């Protein structure tokens, strides 16, 4: 999966929005110590997925499923 990791400053929503705009697949993920957010470039106003930072692993698996168009768990 084409994936780029960057460290930047901003809210999870702002980071995810920027990432989605630049991502090949139009999917951006932003996060901080508390929250993780996935935003679709085609619908940047609202997060598509959110999760506490402690659930990063399952959140990342679901983010990959969104990219691969597989059902979420």
């Amino acid at each position, binding site marked *: 999966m084409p994936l780029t990791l960057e460290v930047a400053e901003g809210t999870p929503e702002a980071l995810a929005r920027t990432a989605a705009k630049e991502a090949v697949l139009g999917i951006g993920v932003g996060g901080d110590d508390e929250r993780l957010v996935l935003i*679709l470039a*085609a*619908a940047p106003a609202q997060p*598509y997925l959110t999760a506490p930072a402690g659930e990063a692993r399952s959140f990342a698996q679901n983010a990959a499923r*969104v990219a691969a168009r597989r*059902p*979420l*768990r």
Partner: protein
Amino acid sequence: MLVAGVDVGNSTTEIAVARVEPGGEPDWLFVARRATTGTKGSAACAAGVADLLARADRRLGERPHITLLAELHPVETGLLELGLIEELALERTAIARPASETPSGSGVGAGRLVRLQDLLEPAEPETVIPIVEDTDFEAAGAALRDARSRGWTIAGAIVQKDDAVLVGNRFDRSLPIVDEVADASELPAGALAAVEVAEPGSNVETLSDPLRLGVLLGFGPEEARAARTAARALADCRAAIVVRTPRSPDGRRPDDAPVVLVAADGTERALDERAQPPPPGAVAAIRGAAGDRNGLLDLIWRALPTPADDPTFARRLARRRAIALALLARGESAGLVDAIGELCAGGARVIARESEAAVLGASTTPGAGHAPFVLDLGGGTVDLHREGGAVSTAGAGDLVTRICAGLLGSDFALGERAKRHRSARVETPFTLHHEDGSRSFLGAPATPEALARLSVLDGRALIPLPAPLAPEVWRGLRRAAKRDVLAFNVRRAIDSIGGVPRGELVTLVGGSAVDGEVVDVVAAELDDLDVAVARGDVLGRHGPRAAVAVGLVLAFAAGSGR
């Protein structure tokens, strides 16, 4: 006098209220419906009737003086699983499981099952298949690497969660590792097992071949032949496991025919799910896995329809050997009549058979004149009425719902919605793939829960369904369920009264007739009879619903009540 006709159905209770004066036409004032409370015919149904009477009271400012009812015959429907085919074939000496579509590695491995924590012990000479249960994938990968370095020979692995690739990346990407084996913790440690992962886009070849499977698991020639259905259960899967389990102590085969039918003359025979059900009235009682019931008026069973265009799903269904059953029993509704009688000053009266009332109600359809043949497609029964003869057959809308829920792996409520509405697959958050193959775009993204799933289109809502089916395939199965139950029972009912004259009008009423697909499949079934099949429109404004409730009032007004 204000009169209420009440039709207590298996799923819906309907009311029609009219003012009836001697010699005059009824003045229709109120028609409504709600979900039936309790089993049809039981006293619990009175709560739903009371609610409808109260609504009529509020609307009209006057409570109906008398409630009119039809004879009630309760219907039970259910889905019966007769046993997995591989269990029958192998005398329960093996467990065969398709695994997820996201395994790791490829190839075949066989060995003794061992729990991950048992790999901490000194290495044993035999090849093993470790079982990874709740262990984190980092820890599992490390444990497997450590075990191999200490001399364990690992041929593959079985992972309970969705972590096969993650474990494989940290251990050995070449070994077959299957995941999402929900009952991994229940697999018997020490048993001989085989795992296979095919290359992407391919299917397992070794575990789906009974002789090769037999060699891997040490079956004798006879057992290998018996393994054919276990092998067949895994065909079309990319990843699978087979575990050899100890033979049952008594060595007996599981019961192959757990349901016994008792004919009207007292003779007994096992239910053969591959045979056609007998004509109405031929079976008087049932014993066994579906429960013991006497006083049956009719019974039907239907196998789950299989999709010709989805062989993988068809094999999964065949593996379950599930049948849907409907039993129509002699009604005992005195308690209900008494309970409803207390709700009106003039009490409650049973004045007609359901289908007699349906004919009167259906005849109010504009353009129908007198409706000589009326098919009442309800929740529990298909009733056919004509002058001088009526027949009720077990199995209608509720049985279709049971089949839909059985196919989808859903509960009854979701099966009901899936039965009634079109579906689409949510291909991307913004794209729907419809049943006719067309695509449309969403203005707002679909919910994450619906992504990549077959979903019911109920108004603007997308309700995800659990089955991994293409919309075209599900449409075919849904229509097949309606054909197999409703069209089948329509044919049984018509055959049992000796047919319908060519060119005659057949009017469809009842809740199931609201569904255009049902009208389609019934009309197609009756094509060879060259009859006019039309949907009722009771009182010209209620569609095919409330025919019985309206008919009861008409029967009362005509003085035909008994």
